[in-house]
C-alpha cells in the first residue's frame, strides 16, 4: 500500500524526501521496470519518489572530453540527440536496441543502470565508454564507474537516499571505430540473449586501443580486459580477430562456468566478438 507519492520538481526536494521518509521508498523514473515489478507483486512500495518532472535531470551536454547524460534522459531522446549521433554513435545504437518505441519513449538511462539487469541493452555501452555515474544524496555527490556500481544481477551499490543524477562518458578520439549488436529472438521487444559493444582505435593497422564487452553473457557487464590486452599493439588481421573470438568465449566460460545454455551461447559469443571487431574495423559494410 502506497502511503506517500512524491513528485518533486527539483532534485534537492527529492533528496530531502528520501532522507526523511521512514519506509521503503522506490524511485520512479520511466517506470518500464518498476511498474512491471509492482504489477507482478514483487515490489510493494510504501513510498514512491517520481523523478519524471525534474527537468534538471533531462539534459545532455558536452564538457571537454566528456559527454554528460542526465539520468532521466529517455532512450528515444538519447538515440535522437545530435551530440550523441555525432560523437558516440554507438550510444544511439544501444539506445535503439531497447524494447519498443513505446518503451524507449519512457525508459531512462539512469533507470537502465539502477535496475541492473544482466540483459540491459544500454549498460554495456556505458561501461565500454568507461562511463561514470554521478550519484547524489542529501549531503553531497559521489562518482562511481558504472562497472563498479553494478555489483550483481539486479543489484547495485546504491544506498538508501541516493539517486543517480547523470552519467559521464568519455568521447572516443576521432576515427574510433564503433560497433553494437544485439542477439535476441526478434528485433523488437526481445530481451537480449547476448549483446555486445566494441570500440576500436587503429593507427596504421596497429591496434592502439580497444574496448570490448559481450553483455548479457555474464552476471555483470564488464570490459573483457584479457582480450583487449591481447589485441593492443598487434597488427589487425582476420586471424587476430578469430583469436579474439576464441578468447572471449573462454572468458565467458571462466566467469559463468558451464551452464545448460553454454552449448548455444558460447559459439555465438565467439562469432559476435569477431563480428563486432570487424564492424568496428571496417564499418557496417563488413557484413552487408
Amino acid at each position, binding site marked *: 500500500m502506497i502511503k506517500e*507519492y512524491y513528485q518533486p520538481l527539483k532534485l534537492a526536494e527529492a533528496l530531502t524526501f528520501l532522507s526523511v521518509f521512514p519506509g521503503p521508498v522506490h524511485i520512479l523514473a520511466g517506470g518500464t521496470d518498476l*511498474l*512491471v515489478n509492482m504489477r507482478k507483486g514483487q515490489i510493494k512500495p510504501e513510498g514512491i519518489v*517520481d523523478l519524471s518532472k525534474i527537468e534538471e535531470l533531462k539534459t545532455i551536454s558536452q564538457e571537454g572530453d566528456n559527454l554528460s547524460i542526465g539520468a532521466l534522459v529517455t532512450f528515444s531522446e538519447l538515440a535522437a540527440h545530435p551530440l550523441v549521433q555525432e560523437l558516440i554513435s554507438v550510444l544511439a545504437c544501444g539506445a535503439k536496441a531497447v524494447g519498443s*518505441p*513505446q518503451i524507449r519513449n519512457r525508459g531512462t538511462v539512469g533507470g537502465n543502470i539502477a535496475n541492473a539487469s544482466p540483459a540491459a541493452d544500454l549498460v554495456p555501452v556505458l561501461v565500454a565508454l568507461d562511463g561514470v555515474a554521478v550519484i547524489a544524496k542529501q549531503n553531497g555527490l559521489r562518482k562511481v564507474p558504472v562497472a563498479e556500481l553494478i555489483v550483481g544481477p539486479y543489484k547495485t551499490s546504491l544506498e538508501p537516499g541516493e539517486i543517480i543524477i547523470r552519467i559521464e562518458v568519455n568521447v572516443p578520439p576521432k576515427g574510433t571505430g564503433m560497433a553494437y549488436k544485439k542477439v535476441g529472438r526478434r528485433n523488437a521487444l526481445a530481451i537480449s540473449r547476448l549483446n555486445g559493444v566494441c570500440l576500436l582505435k587503429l593507427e596504421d593497422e596497429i591496434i592502439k586501443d580497444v574496448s570490448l564487452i559481450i553483455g548479457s553473457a555474464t552476471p555483470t557487464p564488464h570490459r573483457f580486459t584479457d582480450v583487449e590486452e591481447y589485441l593492443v599493439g598487434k597488427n589487425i588481421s582476420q586471424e587476430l580477430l578469430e583469436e579474439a573470438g576464441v578468447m572471449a568465449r573462454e572468458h565467458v566460460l571462466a566467469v559463468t562456468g558451464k551452464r545448460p545454455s553454454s552449448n548455444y551461447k558460447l559459439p555465438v559469443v565467439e562469432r559476435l566478438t569477431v563480428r563486432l571487431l570487424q564492424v568496428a574495423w571496417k564499418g557496417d559494410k563488413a557484413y552487408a
Partner: protein
Amino acid sequence: MPELKICFNLNGREVTVMAPPDMTLLELLREKLDLTGTKKGCEIGECGACTVIINKKAVNSCMVLVPQVEGTEVITVEGLSQNGELDSLQQSFIKNHAIQCGFCTPGMLMSAKALLMNNPNPTKEEIKEAISGNLCRCTGYIQIIKAIASASK
C-alpha cells in the same frame, strides 16, 4: 494514501481527475473515464494494445502512473476523430482491410498517429519500426503497413 488530484489535457479537453497514485493511466482511462477504446492486453509493456500518445510520443498506458500525466497532453483512440469524422488514418485502416478482430487496432492507430505527427512522410522501414511494439495476431502486418503508408501520402 488518499487520492491525488491530477490535471491534464485529454483529447483536446482539460480534465481534472481524482485517482490513487498507484493507478495506471490505462486503468484510469478504462475504469474511471469510460474510454474503453484503449485496450488492456499484457499490462507489462509487451503487446502495445494500450498505446496512447503523451506529448506527441507513443507510450504504453499500462506503464504510466496517473500522477505522471499531470500537465501533459494525452490522446487516445477516441481523440482521433474530429466532429464525427474518422481520422484519415482510421479511414485508411478500413480501406486497406487492416483490421480483423480489432483488438490491436487502437494501439496500432496510436503508434501510427505518433509516427505521422513527427514524420509525415515515413519510409516503409520507419513504419515497421513505429509499430514494432504492437502485436497483431490475426490480420498480419502487411495491410497495416499499407494502411499507414497510404494515409501518409
